[in-house]
């Protein structure tokens, strides 16, 4: 591949990332302001986005950090295990020559966009660049602007509620016949444990027990 083709594919990737950017900036802002409202310093909040770059697990991290450090590590890692699948699929579809760079930006949205497009590794990197910088910019605006925003009690409560909205929004695409069982079971287990004052344990058990129960029930259905 010549240099011009490589650059044009990189540009194509950045252009393709525009819808992702549109989505990432407000969620990044919500993440930044939520983290600060939960007691994280603005710089620490930006550092989380710079180093981790995985939306839902970052929200899980900031939610759990004040209750249990162990769970603040285990739950995000557990949530991010789906990236094993993403990377494996992408590696089989696209020839990857710089895995240490390409791997970093493989988020849900980048993965979903890349599997629906014909392109090479440069296009994938272009997608990742657009997504990554919009996520950082969103986080910075939310984190550094939130001290002004949080002076207003109503606004502060609404920004904190964005966390609930995010998890709900991530759940909506899975509210179909095949996946709703896992969602209901996971929510039920977590709700029960929350009432017993064991929220973190409930989330972990939801992630382990729900797929096991769903598989068991499907097995019985198929018999």
């Amino acid at each position, binding site marked *: 591949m010549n240099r011009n083709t490589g650059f044009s594919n990189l540009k194509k990737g950045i252009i393709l990332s525009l819808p992702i950017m*549109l*989505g990432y900036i*407000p*969620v990044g802002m*919500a993440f930044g302001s939520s983290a600060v409202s939960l007691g*994280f310093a603005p710089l*620490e909040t930006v*550092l989380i986005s710079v180093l*981790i*770059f995985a939306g839902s*697990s970052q929200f899980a*991290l900031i*939610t759990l*950090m004040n209750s249990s450090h162990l769970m603040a*590590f285990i739950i*995000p*890692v*557990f949530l*991010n*295990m*789906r*990236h*094993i*699948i993403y*990377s*494996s699929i*992408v*590696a089989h579809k696209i020839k*990857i020559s710089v*895995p240490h760079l390409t*791997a970093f930006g*493989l988020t849900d949205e980048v993965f979903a966009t890349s599997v629906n497009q014909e392109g090479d590794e440069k296009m994938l990197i272009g997608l990742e660049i657009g997504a990554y910088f919009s996520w950082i910019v969103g986080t910075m605006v939310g984190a550094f602007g939130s001290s002004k925003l949080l002076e207003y009690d*109503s*606004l502060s*409560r*609404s*920004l*904190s*509620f*964005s966390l*609930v909205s*995010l998890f709900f929004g*991530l*759940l*909506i695409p899975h509210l179909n016949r095949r*996946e709703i069982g*896992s*969602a*209901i*079971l996971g*929510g*039920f287990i*977590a709700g029960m444990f*929350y009432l017993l004052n064991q929220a973190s344990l409930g*989330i972990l058990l939801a*992630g382990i*027990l*729900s*797929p096991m129960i769903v*598989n068991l029930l499907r097995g019985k259905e198929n018999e």
Partner: protein
Amino acid sequence: MNEKMIHLLVIGMVAVSTYLMRFLPIVFRNRIKLDKFAEFLSNSSIAIISALFITSFMSSTTGFLDLPVAIFTLCSVFIFYKLWRNLGLSILIGVLIHFLLSLIFPNL
């Protein structure tokens, strides 16, 4: 070790683990068989997202008076997500609706 250092350590550990989960499958792509593992992980991710939703919902709604605003906000997130298929915008609209409802009904 003080609290700040523990925070940074946890952030670093999550960052390294997340990166390795993205990086290693690319390096070892010919050795990984995903057939059974994929379904478990997929169901597990959905269950965890649902668990996080329920936990954050229950902790943010402190009483029955909060419920109408919370439910109305989530309904609008659902409707706008179905209309636009854009998570970020749907959440932004949700935050605005929650804020407006909190201003209109300050005692809720």
